[in-house]
């Protein structure tokens, strides 16, 4: 796969909560979790880092060699692509600052956990982040 990937801008809603990356694919209703190095990797990816930047960031955070992290990142990033959480592309600008203290201290290869138990429940009413730029009247403000 290409090393140039970005978070799927239309179908994915995600946030790192309590050291865990929580990710929803709004197109399928499947949701995902990544902890530890996976949470850090996702945070770096979401901040606009490329694969090398992610590997460096994770290596720095956990004090392990970057080449080991890079090897571990391959299957993780492939999983993200399989589930269409990332798409080919390059970030618009320089990467944003990331709080690397989001996860615990022990390093383990990043792992994407997949959950399908809510997919039917999320079919109708998920938020749609790609539509944020559509202006609409807000009844609270009339604007």
């Amino acid at each position: 796969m290409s090393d140039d990937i970005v978070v799927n801008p239309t179908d994915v809603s995600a946030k790192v909560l309590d050291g865990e990356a929580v990710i929803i694919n709004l197109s399928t209703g499947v949701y995902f979790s990544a902890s530890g190095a996976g949470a850090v990797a996702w945070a770096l990816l979401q901040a606009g880092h490329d694969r090398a930047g992610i590997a460096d960031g994770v290596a720095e955070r956990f004090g392990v060699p970057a080449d080991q992290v890079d090897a571990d990142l391959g299957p993780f990033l492939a999983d993200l692509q399989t589930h269409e959480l990332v798409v080919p592309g390059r970030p618009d600008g320089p990467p944003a600052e990331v709080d690397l203290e989001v996860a615990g201290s022990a390093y383990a290869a990043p792992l994407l956990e997949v959950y399908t138990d809510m997919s039917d429940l999320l079919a109708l009413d998920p938020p749609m982040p790609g539509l944020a730029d559509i202006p609409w009247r807000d009844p609270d403000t009339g604007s």
Partner: protein
Amino acid sequence: MPAFDAGEHLSGALGCIVGQTHPPTEVLVVDDGSTDDTVAIARAWGEPVRVIEQPTAGPAATRNRGAAEAAGELLAFLDPDDRWLPHKLEVQVAHLAGDPAAGGCVSRVRQVWTDAFDREAAHYADHARMAIEGVPGYATTSLLVRRETWAEVGPLDPERWYSDATEWFARARDGGVRIDLLDDVLVLHRLHGQNLTRRRPADSAAEFLDLVHGRLQAKRAGDG
């Protein structure tokens, strides 16, 4: 029916309720502090429409109020900007009558785009979940639920403005309550500029992420 500044859509919604092939015994409009003519329009309908007014408390609290005030054995909800197809209640009432073990049922829902949202329709034309004829309607607007099931599962979480129904259906499922999905498309979900789930996408996304995060934590607690 929970209503907030719903004057534009209210009469159409009430019309499709009273025009059901299996009409409801009562129709409650709970006005959540509207500033428009919602209350006047609802009152003008007369029987069987009854109007309840309350200070703005949010959509989930408003639906809960309606459920609490309703007298019937079966509860249904309709948001003013959605529409029931004429046989919605008839099909669902028959389903529950034929299957006493089912606590409730939802139907498939057809998304209807308004002209103003042509751009949105084009954007999602190939979207996997939008392309199918009817989307699984796990929303209050397609639900018919037994009163005792509603009491067993508990009310909607009033703190949730966007994900109240999703959380309720998940809670029901976790509690072993069966809410059947009927294959029929019985509800039209109209998408326009004031849909709550798209009015504030950031707030909405945060709520759904919080909901999923809570379920992940609950799974781990259960596994542990």
